């Protein structure tokens, strides 16, 4: 038995976060046609928006589409209805991360956000290191890039931190404005 209440709430959540104008989507596919990673997406970004409007939560969340978005914003500048498909993707990521739907991509974003929350800034080395615990398959690429960067003095061994008052403020921003 489908959970109609949950589906309705899901649609409302997406509209609240990505903008009510998402409802005006005419399914023209300009977003999909503009997307640099469209060929790898299934469902396409157009279809993803349809799923959201139909409240099909499972289908909208359990795929790689939202994680293949590069945030290039071509869809967003081209949509003839003034919808921001990238904001729909962001809303779905937010829901997926909040509900603990596990994927390597969500893990990467959460590690990134944790670094901001704890230090105020990103340091490449601990970011990569922590991600490798979740997704060891990225080790080859990471080693390769490490070997490229280290001799050029571009890998810092220090953890970048802002001042303690600043860190408190950043933590407040993330926690009180609805972060994870």
């Amino acid at each position: 038995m489908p959970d109609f209440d949950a589906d309705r709430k899901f649609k409302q959540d997406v509209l609240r976060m990505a903008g009510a104008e998402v409802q005006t989507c005419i399914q023209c596919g300009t977003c999909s046609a503009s997307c640099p990673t469209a060929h790898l997406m299934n469902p396409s970004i157009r279809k993803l928006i349809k799923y959201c409007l139909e409240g099909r939560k499972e289908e909208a969340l359990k795929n790689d589409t939202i994680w293949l978005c590069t945030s290039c914003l071509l869809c967003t500048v081209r949509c003839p209805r003034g919808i921001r498909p990238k904001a729909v993707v962001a809303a779905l990521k937010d829901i997926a991360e909040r509900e603990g739907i596990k994927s390597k991509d969500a893990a990467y974003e959460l590690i990134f956000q944790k670094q901001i929350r704890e230090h105020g800034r990103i340091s490449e080395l601990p970011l990569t290191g922590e991600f490798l615990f979740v997704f060891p398959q990225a080790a080859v690429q990471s080693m390769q890039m490490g070997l490229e960067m280290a001799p050029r003095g571009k890998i810092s061994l220090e953890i970048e931190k802002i001042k303690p008052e600043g860190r408190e403020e950043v933590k407040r921003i993330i926690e009180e404005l609805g972060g994870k």
Partner: protein
Amino acid sequence: MKLAYYPGCVSLSTGKEMDLSTRAVSAALGIELEELEDWNCCGATHVSNELVATGLCARNMAQTDLPIMTSCSICYSNLRTAAKQMEDPDVKARVNAVLTKKYSGASIRHALDVILEVLEKNQDLLVVPLKELKVAPYYGCLLTRPRGVDSPEFPTILEKLIKNLQAEPIDFRLKTFCCGGPIFMPQQKAAEDTAFKILSEAKKAGAEVIVTVCPLCHFMLDAKQKALEQKRDEKIGIPVLYVTQLVGIALGLGPEELGLNMNSVSPMPMVEKVYERMAE
């Protein structure tokens, strides 16, 4: 001209040459930079909650009354987007409620735009004209999207700058195509596919150098170039410079000041060519 400077996290690691060359070129052009007090990460493309992303950027923008300059297109796009979001009184009230210094408005500029403005008035500073140098203008995404300094579809500001340095901008079909950078860690293949298309196209179009305005584009096209060549069995061998590095060469600044030794594909043979052409 005095501006607040927002270096961004990358400037402390993989984009050190972006920061070095930004500071060196600004000094040479008489642009005084005051680094933003205790700046934090803008959230890059990894903070999915829009209100949080706005809050993180607003904290940075509230640190100064000066216009803010950055060399990173991701920071640039995020700060501008946040400034736009903060025009909504409800968003502004919610964000200001958690900020220590309150946000009251900001003006955000990309280094490219600032440099071009100053250069146009000070042509005498160009001591090393980049005669005949074929430059691929690579905009990537976030300099012009969602809204920025130029058209998101057909930007021309980089070409304008390149011509100003007396170099030749090539007709570069993929100039606004995404480099794939934001997903390179978890989605390696997708990211590498798009980056390689750009490199391959630049090669076909006869570029001697690719110029970028974003540290992630730079990373994908420069740091990854060798690995991509090996994987695809296709030689590229094109240096990729930050726009500030290219301008610095034309201003006669030295390789160390511009961090040219930090690039993966060495731009030195290209720099030598520039000097040879100047001597001809």
